[in-house]
């Protein structure tokens, strides 16, 4: 199982996106649901044909250690899950980026026949109770702070290193219990 942080291919995000982030202590599960706002773009011709034939839209999964990221290519995030316990979290002050371009990312990794890629990447989890921010620093303590940040949603940020590899994910406005509005 490869243990390299994934390189990300970035693409502009032209629709507002918000993530419903929550931590459910009863299940020890952090989850984020991504919701796009604004008008739905007209489906492309290929999408129309595939819908007509009953072919489902592709959904891919990238597993980074304990983190499970589901997204629809190219780069549209659907959900993030991670089983975690607050006893393992470090206290830290979230440095929420003042300016971060709105982008999606496509990981440059090899997916298997079932559209799944598993990378054995360790992560350190930190929590800022004031900002209600959960931060995941990939690669443990050996990785430097991210060089640049971009916004995956209004309240979710990704930090990259010089080689465009994922260093950190930051989820702000994390609520408690099940994500609101999903059921």
């Amino acid at each position: 199982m490869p243990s390299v942080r994934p390189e990300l291919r970035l693409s502009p995000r032209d629709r507002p996106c918000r993530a419903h982030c929550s931590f459910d202590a009863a299940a020890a599960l952090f989850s984020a649901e991504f919701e796009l706002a604004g008008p739905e773009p007209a489906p492309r011709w290929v999408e129309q044909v595939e819908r007509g034939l009953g072919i489902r839209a592709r959904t891919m999964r990238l597993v980074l250690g304990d983190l499970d990221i589901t997204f629809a290519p190219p780069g549209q995030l659907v959900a993030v899950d991670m089983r975690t316990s607050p006893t393992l979290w470090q206290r830290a002050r979230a440095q929420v980026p003042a300016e971060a371009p709105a982008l999606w990312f496509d990981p440059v990794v090899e997916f298997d026949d079932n559209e799944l890629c598993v990378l054995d990447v360790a992560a350190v989890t930190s929590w800022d109770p004031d900002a209600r921010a959960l931060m995941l620093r990939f690669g443990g303590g050996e990785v430097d702070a991210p060089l640049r940040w971009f916004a995956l949603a209004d309240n979710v940020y990704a930090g990259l290193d010089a080689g465009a590899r994922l260093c950190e994910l930051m989820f702000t406005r994390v609520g408690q219990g099940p994500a609101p509005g999903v059921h």
Partner: protein
Amino acid sequence: MEPGAYSGDEDAVEWSAGARPPGGSDVFEVRPARVPPGAASIVDEASGAVIGYREDSGGVWMVWDLDGALVEIGELPLEAPLLDPIDLLSGGLTGLLRGALRGAARGAAGGAIAGAGRAGVRALATRTVLALHRVFRGLIGPGSLKFTATTATRMATPGRHVPLHILRLAIRHGKQMADPQGVLGAVKYVAPMWRNGKQYTLEVIVRARDSTVLHFHYE
């Protein structure tokens, strides 16, 4: 209040979809330990689900259900020789050639089934199919397994969905252990799972007091 201080329990919800993933045709499997590793999966054409296993070995065939119970055992029929002297007597050289072609076709068909590792239900007796279906229906029907709002959402997400009967089979046949995250009353089940012939490890975390799936994940 910190997230860790949250003390409420999520409401449990029922999940009632069948074996097929949302909008897909993927084939999932969790094999009971009693089924030999080389046994071919029996796929139900209507649901697209694996409903049993069959192995032909040592002159007998055996069929197991999803619980790993041996449903039926029988003797394989005697096969005609590749070149039957009767072909020569009845048709001369043409008859001999016909017999050889018949033998080659039989060999190719057998090889195709073994290579694919799957078998359809058509080759089975009706009573065998009914017995396999009875166990399968018991696994996909309404039962005690419930879901949280999050896991119910994941069940409806293509790419994350795992059929209900596969989760139940993992709980039934998987390795049971304490929840590594230390959730009180939660049990973790781990089982090898196949999706479209590729092997993964499926983990299911269940709250024991009300059989609610707190999390499931495969990689």
